[in-house]
């Protein structure tokens, strides 16, 4: 039952497993859906979706899979034309200038416009573009400029008169939650976990069983309790991220790593550079002057117990690396190579994570060069590479 629906879900990226599908069957057999399509929708959602980010995808697949089965109510089409028109007119009175209103009249007035809106709404559903396409393109519609999208219009819901004009899944309440940046973060966290170094610091609050036994024995059998502080993660990470230029293609991947790292460690400091670190690093990805921090200050503030992780493609013009003044964002008296060597020397535990695939490294001079400087401690930014890098760092 519903095998096609299940497969469509998987194609749409909702990672429902066979086990969950069987659970759904079990729930249906137990009569939990009551032969009511709304109830079935809720039940399927609770069973197959385990993350609010996939709720929107689920709604879309559900709407698509059960489109033919559900007869729309006879007046639904009428409502769709009627209600938003009224709603938009109210809205337009408030926000549109006279000039824009005249433009609307030129387009054939509101009724014509609403028809277009409805058509667009239809194509949008059919195309599965997830509401990202705004009404009106290339300036033909006055609403393009104002940025109304059909979901914002909330057809059939805003008036509260007929909540069923649009089915629940068509309303797509969970659209805002469909963010893909954190996908796979957990895997990365598990890899980063290798880095955790537990140290006992702070107030003694835990019983040290081994210590107690040995001191009790030494105490001629009289109990001598020994306490130790609780274990905390004491690892310190300095993350240097390449930003802008050639790294733009890899921003998503870097962001993932960053989210994962942020949650996994207590002490983590992240700084940014452009292509190659010189005398200045930045605290903010926008590389503004007020966020600048001298590299020497970084070297003095964070001692050798910090672990240094570079994230960057290391692909740049050779001049940027070996020539004074070769830096593209500011003047540098000393070469990038010197600064890199200084950083690597200051932090014995250093790795470089490179989002480019390893096969391509040989084709770029600077990658080969930096890799040599790091004594091969450059790794691909993949699960496997991350794992190897973390092993090198511990």
């Amino acid at each position, binding site marked *: 039952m519903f095998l096609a629906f299940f497969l469509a879900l998987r194609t749409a990226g909702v990672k429902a497993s066979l086990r969950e599908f069987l659970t759904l069957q079990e*729930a249906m057999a137990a009569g939990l859906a009551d032969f009511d399509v709304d109830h079935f929708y809720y*039940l399927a959602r609770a069973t197959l979706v385990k993350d*609010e980010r996939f709720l929107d995808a689920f709604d879309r697949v559900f709407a698509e899979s059960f489109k033919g089965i559900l007869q729309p109510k006879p007046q639904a089409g009428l409502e769709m034309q009627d209600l938003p028109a009224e709603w938009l007119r109210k809205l337009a009175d408030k926000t549109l200038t006279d000039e824009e209103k005249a433009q609307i009249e030129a387009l054939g007035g509101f009724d014509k416009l609403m028809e277009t809106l409805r058509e667009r709404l239809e194509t949008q559903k059919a195309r599965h573009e997830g509401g990202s396409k705004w009404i009106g393109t290339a300036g033909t519609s006055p609403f393009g400029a104002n940025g109304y999208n059909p979901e914002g219009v909330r057809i059939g819901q805003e008036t509260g008169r007929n909540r069923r004009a649009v089915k629940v899944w068509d309303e797509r309440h969970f659209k805002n939650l469909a963010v893909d940046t954190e996908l796979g973060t957990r895997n990365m966290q598990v890899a980063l976990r290798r880095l955790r170094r537990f140290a006992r610091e702070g107030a003694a609050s835990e019983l040290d069983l081994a210590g107690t036994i040995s001191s009790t024995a030494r105490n001629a059998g009289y*109990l001598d309790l020994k306490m130790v502080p609780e274990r905390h993660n004491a690892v310190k990470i300095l993350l240097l991220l390449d930003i802008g230029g050639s790294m733009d293609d890899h921003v998503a991947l870097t962001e993932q790593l960053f989210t994962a790292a942020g949650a996994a460690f207590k002490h983590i400091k992240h700084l940014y550079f452009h292509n190659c670190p010189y005398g200045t690093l930045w605290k903010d990805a926008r590389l503004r002057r007020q966020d600048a921090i001298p590299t020497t200050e970084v070297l003095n503030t964070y001692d050798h117990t910090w672990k240094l992780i570079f994230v960057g493609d290391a692909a740049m013009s050779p001049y940027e690396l070996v020539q004074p003044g070769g830096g593209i964002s500011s003047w540098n008296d000393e070469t990038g190579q010197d600064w890199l060597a200084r950083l690597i020397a200051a932090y014995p535990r250093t790795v470089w994570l490179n989002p480019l695939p390893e096969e391509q490294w040989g084709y770029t001079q600077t990658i080969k060069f930096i890799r040599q400087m790091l004594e091969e401690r450059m790794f691909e930014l993949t699960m496997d590479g991350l794992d190897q890098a973390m092993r090198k760092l511990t």
Partner: protein
Amino acid sequence: MRFEGTKTFVATDDLKIAVNAAIALQRPLLIKGEPGTGKTVLAQEIAAALGKPLISWHVKSTTKAQQGLYEYDAVSRLRDSQLGDARVHDIGNYIIRGKLWDGFEAEDAPVLLIDEIDKADIEFPNDLLLELDRMEFFVYETRQTIRARKRPIIIITSNNEKELPDAFLRRCFFHYIKFPDRETMQSIVDVHFPGISSLLLREALTAFFELRDIPGLKKRPSTSEFLDWLKLLLAEDIGPELLRERSAAKLIPPLHGALLKNEQDVHLFERLAFLHRRGG
């Protein structure tokens, strides 16, 4: 045994279906949602509605999965051995039961709430996989297996601070409590303040949803904050006129401290109010 909401808790249809599925198929139910939308309260209400005891296990960053099963109190045993207490010969005297054990052993299957599971270490959910799946665990010290007499109804809440492992998620039902729309909100208020004047409620709801729609708020006020605010409005005897007047003259609703919980949000609000006044 079906959950249909209670006098003090408005359950939407989708929530009821999810809860009933979890009860019928005896799987844990994972609840997520904005803070203040009633995740924790849900477990209490289910217990009340079904007439079952509630066992809550509040998870903290230092909580270990083992603590939910049992703990072995070695210190007491060492001390008792010193004093020559007879109890010392039975290790069972020093096994302290955890919340899961209590839940498994109860005569009447209780509602077991595992609150804020994401606060704990990243491995925490994995350590409970087998226990939640089979509803049994092994006590190493006494060599006994604890099995659930009747499978408890398990409600797990999460605030999304950490991702939960897939294997764990596969075993649960999932429900995301979305923020209630105006109608649902109205029925929630009716449940909590039956005597409230409809005029005041309408103005308060308008002010509240307007406030929630302001872009850039750090923490958008939620249901529980709205209820607190209403309570204050009633206690201070603030009339609907005052709430409406706010939209014209000043933008900040009275007693906003109950709604806005950090000073950046209040500043943002004051700036908007200032612009509004200049513009108007």
